[in-house]
């Protein structure tokens, strides 16, 4: 075998080798076609228990990803709130403040669901959670504002519906890109598990102060490996960045995700001398 062929074969081997693949899998997983049906709990509902990961290729961090041109229907007050977030606020999550709903539905980070008949709990990467009661209760008249809202769950057939109101309006970004929401936010999530490998949400977002009309955010996640689980994460353990972070999310790239645009190249890596 020629040396170049061997090198190519070895490159392909490295791509497919469990060690490399596991490291690249990291926080996202390539989509697969599932051949197993939806698992169910003892009471007959779809079972959402599992470690759920982003599907490779999903546009994450952008709550408007399903809209034409990813353009959010902001009111003038919403535009002003966006400018405020971009120019005068540090990303709340980077300050170890809860991202809340619906930001976490747009996050690229994995999460776990622990499901019981009367409570469905979402466990998030940064070691916090939301616990959704499923006991027939109604919304209170004046809930204390919170980052995840006052969330109430109920079943409609095989769909788990979460209705959330009573949101905070300070130190909140609705997504990674610093888009805003007000205390008028109302979120209705419809969760399904179409097959063994996938979980899906249709998130309806309405906010009469900042958005001219309701809009949807839909997302499908894929099941992680059986031994995958969230690790401990203490956000304030050593948050050195807090003193150095600037305002806003940084640049928004053409694909709608935040990140640096056209960075200058690093020095070339140090390589062995060639004969």
């Amino acid at each position, binding site marked *: 075998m020629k040396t170049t062929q061997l090198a190519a074969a070895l490159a392909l081997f*490295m791509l497919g080798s469990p060690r490399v693949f596991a490291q690249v899998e990291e926080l996202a997983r390539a989509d697969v076609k599932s051949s197993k049906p939806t698992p169910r709990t003892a009471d007959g509902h779809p079972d959402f228990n599992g470690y759920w990961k982003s599907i490779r290729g999903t546009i994450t961090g952008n709550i408007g990803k399903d809209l034409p041109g990813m353009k959010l229907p902001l009111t003038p007050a919403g535009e002003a709130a966006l400018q405020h977030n971009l120019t005068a606020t540090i990303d709340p999550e980077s300050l170890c403040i809860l991202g809340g709903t619906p930001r976490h539905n747009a996050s*690229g980070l994995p999460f776990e669901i622990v499901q019981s008949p009367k409570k469905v709990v979402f466990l998030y990467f940064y070691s916090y959670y939301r616990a959704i009661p499923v006991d027939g209760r109604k919304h209170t008249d004046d809930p204390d504002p919170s980052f995840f809202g006052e969330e109430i769950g109920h079943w409609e057939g095989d769909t788990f519906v979460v209705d959330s109101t009573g949101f905070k309006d300070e130190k909140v970004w609705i997504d990674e890109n610093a888009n805003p929401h007000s205390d008028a936010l109302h979120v209705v999530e419809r969760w399904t598990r179409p097959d063994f490998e996938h979980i899906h949400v249709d998130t309806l977002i309405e906010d009469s102060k900042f958005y001219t009309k309701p809009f949807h955010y839909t997302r499908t996640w894929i099941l992680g490996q059986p031994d995958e689980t969230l690790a401990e994460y203490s956000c304030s353990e050593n948050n050195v960045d807090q003193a150095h972070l600037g305002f806003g999310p940084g640049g928004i790239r053409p694909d709608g995700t*935040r990140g640096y645009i056209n*960075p200058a190249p690093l020095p070339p*890596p140090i390589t062995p001398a060639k004969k």
Partner: protein
Amino acid sequence: MNRRKSPAQCQSKFWGSLPRHSSAPVHASEGGRARLRLTFGGGPPILLTMHARLTAFAALIAGAGLLMVEPARAHHSFAAEFDGNKPMRLVGTITKVEWTNPHAFFYIDVKDDQGNVTKWACEGGGPGALSRRGWKKGDIKLGDTLIVDGYLARDGSHLIDARRVTLPDGRIVSGASAGDGGPQVPGTNP
């Protein structure tokens, strides 16, 4: 015998003044078969045949390709803290290691040609992210020499986002935080 230039000899206005690397790779020939001898930081030499070089190169390219697909999903945005127009290379000895969340930090003393020491903080991913890339806490120790390539903090402090780190044993690893929207780095482990 060919001796490649040290980083100090390769300085340009763009990279600025950097301390001299402690040892330069040396090319040697043994038993009629061309081999490369790579030394870093005073550690034992690593002998690489042509076959091994091509394998490593292919693996690096494969790794680089895989690195390119990470979308943004990190604790904070790279661009909100670091300046992608200010790449730099630091060579220094480790004085402190913080293997913590949200980010691991290691602190290095960088000495210039006049012997003046500047203290730098280098930010990596969280411990889980780094260990997934094959970089364990025990891989670096106080007194080790590291080569850190990354981007300078926007606020001008001696803080660098360590996107590529050359370890004392010669391995080159990505120190970047997973999916922070920062530049992906060719030539590092996936």
